[in-house]
């Protein structure tokens, strides 16, 4: 099992507290992500953004959340055998977890390198496959955690604080 962590140092204490206590969310949203379903992919992230918009979150933070979530949703659509997205809304942060049905990432460090991509021609024709998905998620999130086993599933967790 390979693992990758990136935590914004500013939130390290808050993140440790959150992970140790796993508090109950104010709102939880669930979405299935279909294999190569590029018609519906992105709806889950748009819905999360809509819920957060109603809470009056700053528009720049909202866009960061939406971009990180959307890149992850597209990754599941383009590269996996389908998966599931769970979004937990709290009063100070959003936590989103993506779990797919494989096939796993063979080398996470390599996958984090900007420009590196395994996308096929169809995915590239649609404008994806720039090799910026994971780097974009890292850039826009306060916590990014990947666990993956090659030949098995991948889980990606992201957290973004509202202030």
């Amino acid at each position, binding site marked *: 099992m390979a693992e990758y962590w990136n935590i914004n140092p500013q939130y390290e204490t808050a993140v440790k507290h959150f992970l140790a206590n796993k508090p109950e969310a104010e709102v939880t949203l669930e979405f299935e992500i279909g294999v190569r379903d*590029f018609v519906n992919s992105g709806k889950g992230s748009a819905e999360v953004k809509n819920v957060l918009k109603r809470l009056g979150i700053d528009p720049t933070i909202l866009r960061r959340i939406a971009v990180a979530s959307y*890149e992850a949703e*597209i990754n599941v659509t383009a590269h996996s055998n389908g998966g599931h997205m769970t979004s937990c809304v709290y009063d100070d942060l959003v936590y989103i977890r993506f779990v797919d049905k494989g096939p796993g990432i063979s080398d996470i460090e390599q996958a984090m390198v900007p420009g590196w991509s395994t996308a096929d021609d169809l995915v590239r024709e*649609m404008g994806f496959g720039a090799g*910026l998905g994971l780097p974009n998620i890292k850039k826009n999130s306060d916590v990014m955690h990947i666990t993956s086993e090659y030949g098995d599933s991948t889980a990606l967790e992201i957290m973004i604080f509202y202030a």
Partner: protein
Amino acid sequence: MTLREILSLLEAEVLTSTADLEKEVPCAFASDLISDILMCTKEPTLLLTGLTNPQVIRLSDMIDLLGIVFVRGKVPPQELIEMAEERKLVLFTTKLTMYRSSGILYNSGLRSCKI
């Protein structure tokens, strides 16, 4: 710069039935790569692109696009136009290339979107 001025400068056509052409556009971004476009998180922007699949409209749910100009004479499928209309998003098409369109708008004072 207003959408109406952009329409005129690019000799473009409006594709959507609902279009507030007096809307002010402060900046623009041009790319055919979705991850590039997703760098525009700092402010709402006009997008110039050659991509015509529905994910382009989905982008507007994430990063707040003020309008989309399809370059190189591209016209998106009807379902994409309907998705844009549901979101009150204005779509233009121009025969000009992305390079030329960007140059014309930049020279007329439309700045780059902050990334």
